């Protein structure tokens, strides 16, 4: 029973955020208008992506210290699922940008940082595919993941604070807590974040099980 609780919670939280997010009261704001509801979907995608990349990073470190093939499997699959959430984050963000900033893509440090993160992990999978030998592949990709993740942190967390960004919380724009998240929105936003992170972990769990089954069947 306990094994299902967090999955039930994930489903309920996401359904709640869908219903409450689309029907609930939101502040009337110029330019943003009704698109402000996108915050319940766009931002959780990034949080989930970061959470999964963190899982991938932790398992890469674990692999280097213990050389267990299972850790490598988790690291790779977490990065794969994180990529899916990252693409979803980019798409929801592009849609939002089209209706508020007027273009599908704007030259903004956060956008460029997230696009570069996608490129890094695409490179990570190219590296994985180009090494046939399993142990070597695991070791090299773990090293690359740790190295690149550390640099991406600088890209996403530090650089935007040095320049202007259209996103809230950077370069003189107020952080989003201070102006557009009133208490009604918080009541939807935080459950949405928690729900989507749990869904991400759930997908990860299924992926890992599938891969393990594939491995045993093929041998």
């Amino acid at each position, binding site marked *: 029973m306990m094994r299902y609780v967090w999955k039930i919670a994930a489903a309920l939280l996401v359904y709640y955020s869908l219903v409450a997010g689309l029907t609930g009261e939101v502040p009337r704001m110029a330019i943003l208008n009704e698109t402000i509801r996108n915050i319940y979907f766009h931002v959780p995608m990034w949080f989930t992506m970061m959470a999964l990349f963190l899982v991938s990073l932790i398992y890469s470190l674990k692999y*280097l210290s213990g050389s267990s093939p299972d850790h490598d499997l988790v690291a790779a699959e977490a990065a794969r699922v994180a990529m899916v959430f990252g693409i979803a984050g980019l798409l929801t963000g592009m849609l939002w940008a089209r209706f508020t900033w007027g273009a599908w893509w704007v030259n903004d440090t956060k956008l*460029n940082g997230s696009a*570069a993160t996608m*490129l*890094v992990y695409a*490179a990570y999978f*190219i*590296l994985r595919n*180009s*090494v046939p030998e399993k*142990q*070597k592949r695991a*070791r*090299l990709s*773990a*090293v*690359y993941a*740790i*190295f*690149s993740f*550390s*640099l*991406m942190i*600088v*890209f996403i967390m*530090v*650089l935007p604070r*040095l*320049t202007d960004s259209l996103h809230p919380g950077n370069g003189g724009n107020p952080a989003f807590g201070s102006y557009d998240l009133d208490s009604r929105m918080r009541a939807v936003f935080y459950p949405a974040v928690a729900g989507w992170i749990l869904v991400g972990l759930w997908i990860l769990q299924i992926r890992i099980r599938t891969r393990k089954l594939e491995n045993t069947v093929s041998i």
Partner: protein
Amino acid sequence: MRNIFTLVGKEITLEWRNKYALSGVFIYVISTIFICYNAFRQMIDPQAWNALFWIILLFAAVNAVAKSFMQETRGLQLFYYSFLDPQQVILARIVYNSVLMTVISLASFGFYTVFLGNLVADVPMFLLGLLLGSTGFAAVLTLVSAIASRAGNSASLMAVLSFPILLPLLITVIRFSRNAMEGFSWSVNNPHLLVLLSLNALVIALAYLLFPYIWKA
């Protein structure tokens, strides 16, 4: 420590003996600059001047450092493996590649000024950016070239792996040198300087810690 200097010395001697590799990189830079000169004719925009310069340097760096671990024979690797610490090897490589990159970037700056004119207001500040950019590029590319060579793959893997992770460094150094071109005071550029320094420190520390694992592979 002595081993590191011996290794750096050995690299320099080797490089000097096969002059074709080093002169290859120089010819590469000169011809790229010459192509840009012919393509652009008149470069009036300082921003484009700066961006183009760093892009030329980026490609030169990938070319120059890519061979770092690839040209080594199996026998030489075994020799290193049995007599040296991996940490000594990587530090020596980073030092050597930084020196190489600094020389290349200074020379490129010279050629670039000859062909496309000098638009830099604060030359010492620009040179500092050049130095920090060169060492940063060298350190990142050294580790990536170690990964790429162990993956048994060519220059294309090197480019795919290194370009996205060079972006933070590239963007910071482009901003830093743009401010130097405009002749802004140090106080404007200090945050960028700080980011550049810490990126260099971060990359070198990570390379130092992670290289032993590649070494074993």
